[in-house]
């Protein structure tokens, strides 16, 4: 109201009855518009936000970025974007459990994006630029273990310029990737290519070198820093009658043997106890070797910890799974296994936060006739390889949020620690350690570093941003786009692109890769489905729908900007923004 009076008084000063135009005529005065920007109490701003896929990725991949480049056919640059955060896109594009897809906002609309499918396609391309080693620094870092954690840590430390040496107890590099995951899931050509690329940065490698034996911990701990990523390869014991007395095969040991080219016969009918990826892998490998595998799991399919797609593929291949069944005792005759005594379970009422407990049904014992038994009920850290006086937690190495152990200059990550046991978590752990080690040398404050580089609220860190810095005028994203911030009305429903795969009957004849991967057309079709959450796509909705005409093209003509002199803060632009790239914040805050 005061502003009105002000204008009235101004006009009154100027116009007497003599110098008004004749009559109630106003000669269009658009210049005297009210500054309605003063009405505002909420301010729309073009913000960049993280997409939830990126926050959900334990490796911190720039999912949205690489998808956008792939959509444009710029595969080399897309791969470069991925390699900025993780050196193993070809691996993850095949074996990851893709938490990014579970977080994908498109899942709330039609189908979540097959991010893994596009990642795999892009990873098979040549990168435009493969990262180069950084200018050499003084410090030297030792890495124990060449699994995904160790390889990633080596990769990032080389980018930072440190000298790195990997100590690997096996003759080959790769850890679980090489020894555990079957080749029909991860062909060795892909794995080896990615490992070679990492080594090409100038990583020193000592194979057949077991930490604590072939090289002492005293030696290792005298390096400027050590990253312990030895993994967990010892089998958890199966506590049933007859276990230690007979040749019950350890799941991981058996897979390792198969992958290294040694053969261990399992006879015709093999029972595999367990419900995780190892158990499923064992079954499918056994099938391909000509056996008739049978998985025995004490709960139901929905509680199996194995990747769901793996379980479904196993079932498609004709593998039998006995759910709600627990082993009781191993039966043998003349030193050879003849069967497994089992009991049926029922599931109890689950307590909050825990899975339902299997309760044996008395009187339901039965004998399963088997030639061999594989126990795949979990892995533990091998005894005797860890340095003394290292704090542990339930048999694995204790670490803080930056991967530091209880010993100075010793970091750890991956399966050897409390980290979740997935490849992508190991990759994230390797990156985290690299940053943490680097900060310990430079004296940078880890808290500030973390805040600057963290993706979203609970995501990983962006090391690519650390290394490359921010381009001038670029907006680093803040916050994560929720599904309700995406306006689905502006997207057409398109089904998820189907991943071609070998026909099930054909799969089991050998170890060829089951999933065939997207061709270029499919990859682009799928990449195009990405909403680009939190990124302005210059669609013009804000411009079209502003009731005040306060959104206009900027002077360069390639994006939109808001005229804050007149914007009333109604929020229609933010509501109609398809990707949630406009945020409404209280006036006066960013």
């Amino acid at each position, binding site marked *: 109201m005061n502003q009105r009076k002000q*204008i009235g008084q101004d*006009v009154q000063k100027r116009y007497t009855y003599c110098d008004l135009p004749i009559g109630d005529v*106003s000669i*269009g*005065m*658009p210049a*005297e*518009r*009210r*500054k*309605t920007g003063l*009405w505002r109490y909420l301010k729309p701003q073009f913000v960049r936000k993280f997409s939830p896929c990126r926050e959900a990725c334990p490796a911190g991949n720039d999912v949205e970025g690489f998808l956008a480049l792939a959509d444009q056919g710029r595969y080399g640059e897309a791969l470069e974007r991925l390699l900025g955060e993780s050196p193993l896109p070809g691996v993850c594009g095949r074996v990851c459990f893709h938490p990014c897809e579970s977080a994908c906002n498109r899942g709330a609309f039609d189908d979540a994006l097959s991010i893994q499918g596009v990642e795999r396609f892009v990873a098979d391309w040549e990168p435009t630029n493969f990262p180069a080693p950084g200018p050499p620094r003084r410090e030297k870092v030792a890495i124990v273990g060449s699994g995904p954690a160790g390889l990633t840590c080596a990769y990032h430390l080389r980018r930072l310029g440190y000298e790195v040496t990997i100590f690997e107890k096996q003759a080959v590099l790769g850890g679980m990737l090489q020894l555990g995951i079957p080749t029909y899931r991860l062909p060795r050509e892909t794995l080896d290519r990615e490992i070679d690329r990492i080594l090409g940065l100038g990583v020193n490698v000592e194979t057949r070198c077991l930490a604590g034996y072939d090289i002492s911990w005293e030696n290792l701990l005298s390096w400027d820093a050590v990253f312990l990523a030895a993994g967990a390869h010892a089998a958890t014991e199966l506590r049933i009658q007859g276990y230690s007395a007979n040749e019950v095969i350890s799941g991981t040991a058996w897979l390792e043997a198969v992958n290294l080219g040694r053969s261990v016969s399992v006879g015709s009918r093999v029972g595999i106890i367990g419900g995780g990826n190892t158990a499923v892998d064992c079954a499918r490998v056994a099938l391909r070797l000509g056996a008739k595998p049978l998985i025995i799991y004490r709960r139901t399919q929905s509680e199996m910890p194995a990747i769901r797609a793996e379980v479904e593929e196993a079932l498609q291949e004709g593998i039998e799974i006995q759910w709600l069944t627990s082993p009781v005792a191993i039966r043998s005759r003349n030193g050879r296994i003849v069967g497994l005594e089992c009991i049926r379970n029922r599931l109890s009422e689950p307590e909050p936060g825990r899975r339902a407990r299997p309760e044996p049904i008395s009187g339901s014992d039965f004998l399963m006739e088997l030639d061999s038994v594989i126990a795949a009920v979990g892995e533990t850290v091998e005894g005797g390889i860890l340095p003394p006086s290292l704090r542990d937690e339930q048999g694995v190495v204790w670490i803080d949020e930056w991967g530091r152990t209880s010993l100075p200059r010793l970091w750890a990550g991956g399966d050897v620690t409390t980290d979740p046991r997935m490849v992508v978590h190991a990759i994230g752990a390797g990156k985290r350690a690299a940053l943490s080690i680097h900060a310990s040398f430079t004296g940078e404050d880890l808290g500030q570093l973390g805040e600057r580089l963290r993706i979203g609220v609970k995501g990983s860190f962006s090391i690519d941003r650390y290394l490359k810095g921010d381009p001038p005028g670029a907006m680093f994203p803040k916050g994560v786009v929720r599904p309700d911030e995406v306006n689905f*009305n*502006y*997207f*057409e429903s398109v089904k998820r692109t189907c991943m071609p795969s070998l026909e099930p009957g054909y799969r089991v004849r050998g170890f060829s890769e089951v999933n065939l991967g997207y061709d270029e057309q499919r990859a682009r079709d799928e990449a195009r489905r990405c909403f680009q959450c939190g990124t302005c*796509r*210059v*669609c*013009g*909705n804000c*411009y*079209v*729908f*502003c*009731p*005040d*005409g*306060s959104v206009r093209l900027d002077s360069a003509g390639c994006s939109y900007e808001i*005229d804050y*002199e*007149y*914007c*009333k*803060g*109604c*929020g*229609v632009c*933010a*509501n*109609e923004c*398809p990707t949630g790239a406009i945020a*409404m914040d209280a006036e006066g805050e960013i």
Partner: protein
Amino acid sequence: MIKNAREILPEEDFFHPGHPLCPGCPGGIALRWIMKVLGRDSIANVGATCLCLPTHVYPHSLEVPSLYIAMAPSPAGISGMSAAIRVLKRKGVIPAERKINIFAISGDGSTADIGLASLSGAAERNDDGLYFCFDNEAYMNTGIQRSSTTPQFSWTYSTTKGKTQRKKDLPRIMAAHDIPYVATLSVGYPEDFIKKVEKARDMEPGFKYFQIHGPCPTGWRFPENKTVEMARLAVETGFWSLYEVVHGSLRVTYRPSKQRPVIDYIKLQGRFQGLTDADIQQLQQWVDEKLKDLNQ
């Protein structure tokens, strides 16, 4: 994905910010689009409507000539202007080939109630102009009182227990006037809107009637950032239909793929808070009947 705005909206603006319409006003959106399509060579007749505010409340104005006579008679204004143009062109005062778009913009109150005679007269005479009824479903400018286009059961300050009569179907009334073009518009569907106005603009001279559905955050009691969403919901639930009548032949221009129940639309508006289940059912029935009739 919606096409880039540059593709559907002409670029130049004749309706500028700095006007005192409520934040989120659908009228601002609609008038801005109309002005972009009709352009510099147009003359406005403004009746009583909230859109008086950016056009005739001193010192605001459009960038084109504009006349406010009184509440009801903007259609008569079209008649007067088009007659004047015809005779002045004959006399050579206005060049014969110059195309001036005469249009009127008026609210639902002045169109359907007090100005209905004027509207019917101008339509019957088929005077040349585009008439836009900005339908925010009540007399909003005077502080939210009911009009004949207020839906049944809606709260307003003059129907605090809900309006008893149903919404007047004015577009169908206008379609019966034998005019070249009648269309319904919505601020939730810009492509449909622009196409229809362009079509009418380029048609042969005659009376063209538009009714714009404008969800009013202030009067319908919903948050002001949901204006466009509410417009969409109205169409998706069948409360408002998008169609055109070209020389008497009706064509639905947008059919939602799935008709949503009216409850999805009315539960978000404060003006429908007092409805019982029976009321909602009645509204659903009304919508269903309307749609059935339209689709025949």
